[in-house]
């Protein structure tokens, strides 16, 4: 039995059986628990083997709610032709020691006072970035303390229920007094608050963009959160020699070395092209003009509040809720940064979250490294990228379609279809190359971006800003919620940073320029021209 055509390494199998199996699973309302580390579980042990995913683990929806931390790991195949499974389960989703702001705190009546108290109790730093990071640190400390005064949701809810039951029972015996009546409505109000907080707690644990309004379904969010947790849990990793690693420290070490080698080293020597003759200078003085306060406020509004939190642990919800308290320090950071008198190193750190590229990731390369930036840095990036976006149409060649507002992928496809069509009808011998750049975002050299900017006529202060955000970046890899030690960026642009795609497009446009130049001086020929 198999569920989809991806479950076999060869074509075949009965589609009717597949549908029957899937319908049975959905009729019984079962959830499949995916296993990590391998794609198939059975082999017919032939020379050209047939590999199928035959063994599966299912659980009911209730099991999923009671034991959200259920995971399946695979072992090797010593005797049988089936793979062994190890099932482990836990009743809670493990929490990490890393501080993260919880949205439900913001609804608490004491919240603003606590933030105000701690935010304004730190010493003043001349460096705006350092100042901000010290304040965030103090608030983190304060909130951690405050959090301890919270009781366990479920226990409090249980107690409230018990009180209500008691009062209801009493009401059947005799009419309630005024005090008892008001106690009951108070308890009911409290329950409503708690339920809302509980819903927010679970809602924050997964990203569901398609539920927008008024869903009060805590158990739905809880179920999605545990599915999400299971999907993102990395139980084992295969290193370059093919050894399977399950120990946390070894896994973390492997990831750290892999990403350090990819982004923390630079092979840059020099650009072997004469850039001044290749690139055309444009009038871009506008990029360096001063940012107004409205622009700052607009950018803070435009970044969604619910996105993943960076290393400082605060999301947009916190920033918006406490804006009156933190406003001056935030604006000072922006103003100082754009006047080039602050060093971002203390806040320009990020966590690399590993998002699986395919259903059963095995090696480090099967994950997409998405950087989670601090909100403050994200604002600066967004300010820069909004400005760059407005001129990018002039700067990159008309054949570059990715990441540019105002150009659509449909036109790119139309070009490809049309071009192929003409090639076919020209009766000439032509080849089409489809090239893939490996780890393009992670490996592009910073110096190339800056040099290209310089010769495209970007203002000096703009180049300084870009250099500052690129060079001060550092990252730690998150493995199952635990961050590794940080490394600093020597090359690459971070995925998850709003400025990255534009910087990448700018630098990659160099290839287009070079190919065009080679065509102009006759090194390369256009396949549809008549002279070959």
């Amino acid at each position: 039995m198999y569920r989809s055509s991806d479950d076999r390494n060869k074509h075949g199998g009965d589609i009717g059986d597949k549908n029957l199996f899937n319908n049975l699973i959905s009729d019984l309302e079962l959830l499949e628990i995916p296993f990590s580390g391998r794609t198939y579980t059975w082999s017919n042990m032939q020379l050209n083997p047939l590999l199928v995913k035959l063994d599966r683990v299912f659980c009911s929806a209730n099991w999923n709610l009671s034991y959200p931390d259920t995971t399946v790991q695979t072992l090797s195949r010593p005797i049988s032709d089936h793979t062994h499974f190890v099932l482990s389960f836990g009743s809670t989703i493990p929490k990490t020691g890393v501080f993260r702001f919880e949205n439900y705190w913001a609804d608490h009546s004491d919240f603003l006072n606590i933030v105000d108290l701690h935010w304004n109790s730190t010493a003043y730093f001349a460096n705006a970035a350092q100042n901000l990071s010290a304040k965030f640190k103090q608030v983190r400390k304060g909130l951690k303390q405050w959090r301890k005064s919270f009781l366990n949701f479920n226990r409090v809810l249980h107690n409230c229920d018990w009180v209500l039951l008691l009062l209801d029972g009493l009401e059947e015996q005799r009419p309630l007094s005024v005090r008892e009546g008001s106690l009951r409505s108070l308890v009911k109000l409290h329950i409503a608050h708690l339920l809302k907080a509980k819903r927010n707690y679970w809602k924050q644990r997964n990203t569901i963009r398609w539920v927008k309004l008024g869903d009060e379904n805590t158990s739905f969010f809880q179920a999605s959160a545990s599915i999400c947790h299971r999907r993102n849990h990395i139980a084992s990793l295969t290193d370059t020699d093919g050894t399977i690693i399950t120990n946390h420290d070894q896994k973390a070490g492997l990831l750290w070395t892999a990403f350090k080698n990819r982004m923390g080293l630079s092979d840059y020597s020099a650009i072997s092209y004469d850039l001044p003759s290749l690139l055309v200078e444009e009038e871009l003085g506008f990029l360096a003009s001063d940012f107004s306060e409205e622009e700052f406020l607009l950018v803070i509004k435009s970044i969604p509040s619910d996105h993943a939190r960076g290393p400082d642990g605060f999301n947009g919800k916190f920033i918006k809720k406490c804006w009156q308290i933190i406003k001056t320090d935030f604006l000072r950071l922006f103003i100082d940064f754009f006047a080039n008198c602050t060093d971002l190193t203390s806040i320009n750190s990020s966590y690399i979250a590993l998002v699986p590229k395919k259903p059963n990731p095995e090696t480090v390369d099967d994950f997409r490294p998405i950087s989670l930036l601090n909100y403050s840095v994200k604002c600066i990036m967004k300010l820069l990228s909004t400005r760059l976006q407005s001129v990018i149409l002039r700067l990159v060649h008309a054949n570059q379609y990715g990441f540019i507002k105002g150009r659509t992928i449909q036109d790119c496809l139309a070009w490809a279809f049309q071009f192929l069509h003409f090639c076919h009808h020209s009766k000439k011998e032509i080849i089409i190359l489809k090239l893939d750049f490996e780890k393009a975002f992670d490996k592009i050299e910073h110096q190339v971006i800056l040099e290209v900017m310089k010769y495209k006529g970007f203002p000096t202060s703009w180049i300084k800003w870009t250099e500052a955000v690129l060079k001060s970046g550092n990252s730690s890899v998150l493995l199952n919620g635990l961050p590794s030690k940080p490394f600093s960026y020597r090359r690459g642009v971070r995925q998850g940073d709003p400025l990255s795609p534009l910087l990448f497009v700018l630098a990659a446009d160099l290839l287009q320029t070079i190919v065009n130049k080679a065509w102009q001086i006759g090194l390369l020929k256009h396949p549809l021209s008549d002279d070959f």
Partner: protein
Amino acid sequence: MPANARQLFTLKGLLRSFSNSTGLNVNFEKSFLVPINVSNEKSLHLARTFGCKVGTMPFTYLGLPLGTMRPTVQEFSPLISKMEKRLSGVSKFLSYHGRLTLVNSVFSALPTYYMCSIIIPPAVIQQIDRFRKHCLWSKGDIHRRGTCLAAWEPMCRKKEEGWLGIINIHNQNVALLMKFLDKLYNHANIPWVNLTWNKLYHNSNIPPLQKTSLAPFGGRTLLNSSANSEPSPSVTPTLAAQCPFGMIHGRMIC
């Protein structure tokens, strides 16, 4: 580029110098070369020169099958399997109204990316309609024959007139493709439009209604439908806006 070993070698040199300067390496494992009008031996030789594999014609480019032939039904299988996966999900817990919304907002939206660029063959539309009918009438169960309460075709008519307003995939498809006609006729400053004009109409001002000009994305179907609606197709204002059978919202009125 021309199928010529020396040209390929030059390009390889260019790519190498590019990767030395910028750090962007070509992944030759994942890259391939597609020959057009080239013999097998020659393309193998060229691939060896370049260091990559030889690819064959309908290859995936930006998620769509790209080739000189009209895409076959087989090439839509990713789309079909994606829809199939959605079918066995939540539809059984929903009411008629909920399932109707699901049909219009999910099952009719999944093929949108394909519909924007290529004309979907009738066999695939049939399959899509089968899924949509199953979702609406038999709660997503592909084996049970549900009770169809009404014929499918009239249900695609407008809601205001008392029908269900289910999106007609073919009309939606044609409407989405109309924008290509618009761009072509109005000579928008877009690389593919310029390419087509330079190639086909460089000495005349009005683009003739040549069926070949838009052949790759179902030009004939497009032109037929626009010819039905508009007697003189040498239109300058946007064709899509003039299109009188109201396909802008993808619903058939006529």
